[in-house]
């Protein structure tokens, strides 16, 4: 079996097991699995509008997934994408409201500031990982809570518009990320995400620094021995990952919501990490995984209305996928001889 095909088959088995177990869960709650899956499909792809809705859901998962991929490639685990998304979204909205610029330029500056915010948010965990080898999993997870609550605090106490929900004023139209079609909120964020996936893939394949990062991800000691400046690379890889996390927030803020509010985009950071895991850290594969999760989410919205099954069924299916994928990773790691080799590898 070829080396590229094997992981694809492994993931397909993981999804199959998850769906099979999901079917059992659906039967246990007394719904017909055929009806549930048919409704999911109808909700995700039943019409042009629904396909656009699916792609709308796919966009943040894809961009967050790419952020996770970048860190995975370097053997690092950025689980702080959620926090970077919130910080990026918030920063983009502040630029959108308070920094009047010509249309187009305004949007670009907003996107750029979102990326800087995401980068700034991961800078502390990245510094301590690079300098003192502090586990980035813990520090990035913790920074998620701080980001979500901090942006919430700013929104409520400093930038809340009078009346209404806890949300900021709307951004100026000059900062809007343009929509692709008139009938959907689907916007250029999707194109940015797709282009970024291709660019990141090419970067890792065809540049020497990309190669250094991949080598570092596969075998840290070997990379160090080969002359890769490990500390610097760790720091930069995490910063790049954080910037893309911030970008995801900027896209949601400028392309979809046009404002920041409490509960801005909860969970997309984690969905992205799962999509990247399912894709084995491959940016192109992440497109497919993100589309899969986007379709599940979009379909589940119709499921909630048209059947007696709860929207949460898909959360169960997602969780089952995580379980089977992690089981696979553990099995793969069993072959590693030393503790030092037992790390996240993609």
């Amino acid at each position: 079996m070829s080396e590229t095909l094997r992981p694809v088959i492994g993931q397909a088995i993981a999804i199959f097991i998850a769906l099979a177990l999901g079917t059992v869960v659906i039967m246990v709650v007394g719904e017909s699995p055929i009806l549930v899956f048919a409704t999911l499909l109808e909700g995700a792809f039943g019409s042009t509008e629904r396909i656009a809705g699916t792609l709308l859901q796919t966009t943040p998962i894809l961009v967050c997934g790419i952020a996770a991929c970048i860190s995975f490639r370097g053997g690092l685990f950025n689980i702080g994408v959620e926090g970077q998304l919130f910080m990026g979204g918030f920063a983009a909205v502040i630029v959108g409201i308070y920094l009047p610029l010509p249309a187009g330029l305004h949007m670009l500056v907003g996107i750029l500031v979102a990326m800087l915010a995401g980068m700034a948010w991961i800078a502390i965990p990245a510094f301590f990982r690079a300098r003192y080898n502090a586990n980035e999993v813990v520090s990035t997870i913790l920074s998620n809570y701080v980001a979500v609550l901090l942006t919430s605090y700013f929104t409520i106490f400093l930038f809340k518009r009078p009346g209404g929900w806890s949300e900021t004023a709307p951004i100026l139209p000059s900062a809007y990320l343009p929509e692709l079609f008139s009938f959907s909120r689907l916007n250029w964020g999707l194109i940015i995400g797709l282009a970024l996936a291709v660019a990141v893939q090419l970067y890792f394949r065809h540049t020497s620094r990309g190669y250094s990062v991949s080598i570092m991800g596969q075998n840290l000691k070997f990379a160090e021995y080969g002359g890769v400046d490990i500390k610097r690379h760790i720091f930069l890889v995490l910063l790049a990952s954080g910037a893309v996390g911030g970008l995801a927030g900027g896209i949601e803020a400028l392309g979809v919501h046009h404002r920041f509010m409490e509960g801005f985009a909860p969970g997309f950071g984690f969905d992205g990490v799962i999509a990247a895991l399912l894709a084995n850290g491959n940016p192109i594969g992440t497109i497919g995984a993100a589309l899969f999760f986007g379709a599940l989410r979009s379909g589940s919205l119709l499921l909630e209305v048209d059947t007696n099954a709860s929207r949460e069924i898909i959360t169960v299916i997602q969780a089952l996928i995580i379980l089977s994928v992690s089981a696979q990773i553990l099995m793969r790691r069993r072959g590693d001889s030393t503790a030092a080799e037992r790390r996240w590898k993609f």
Partner: protein
Amino acid sequence: MAADVKVAAISGYFAQGFGQSIVAGLNKAKDDFGVEVKLIDTGNRALDYEEQFNNVAKDGEYDLVFVMGWELVDALTKAAEAYPDQRFIFIDGVLDSDKIVYADFSEEEGSFVTGAFASLMAAKGSAIDGLGDGKSIGFVGGRDIPVIRNFLRGYEQGAKAAAPDVAVDAVFAGTFDDPAKGSELTMALYGEGNDIVYNVAGPTGEGVLQASAAADKYSIGVDIDQCDVAPGHVMASMLKRGDIAVYSLIKDEVEGRTVKPGTYSFDLKSGGVELLMCPQTIDMVPEDVKSKVSELRDAVINGDIKITE
């Protein structure tokens, strides 16, 4: 009878106080009139809301769609424009759009009576077990949003009307989902001499009620009967009868009085809001407090007292 009436309700709060009371009203309507009821849980992702409204309204399947939650306002307003024939009923206040039906609760009236009750009790001071100097009473709000401000407005004016010397100390938790924060704020309020604290904070408010038991002080519940959360420490509950509103709107529809866009008021007079003194503590409430509270309540109902903006 129009047994073919179908209603849906869309919200992220069916499991919480006010949401529970709406579900109770829907279920009662289902039993009494045989209407079909569909509950749609929105979850907490803003990205999903618009699609969910589209899914509900697309076939015109539901005669009435009840909507609860301020985070849905944006999506609701868009859906009301996109589906002009779909009647949406917003149960949390009144918005700008004239295409929507509003069930408007006079929470300020119920809170006025609550404020009067709390301040009169506090003014009794140490004559009542567990009360101190009675200079002020407390208020813990969830988020700082218009509907919660309405509660506070009524509470302050009621306190002032009943016992002008008693001040109101109000804080906002900034969240409806953090009981620990509610407890913490309440302990701080108790520390500053507010012996009775009124919670208008959903699950955060559970923490307020529990703090009253822990500190051996007093609290007041909201939306639904919360007397049992901390028996003997919850003095009263300000009921916001979502069940009555939902039921009576469905009843109008079923009996041919078609519900139309505009505002339907649920106030003290119609029983949409009311103050329930808890049975566990009612014996410690002096008769003169009871009579003064009921006098002020009547004055609000008659329009002798107007609660100002």
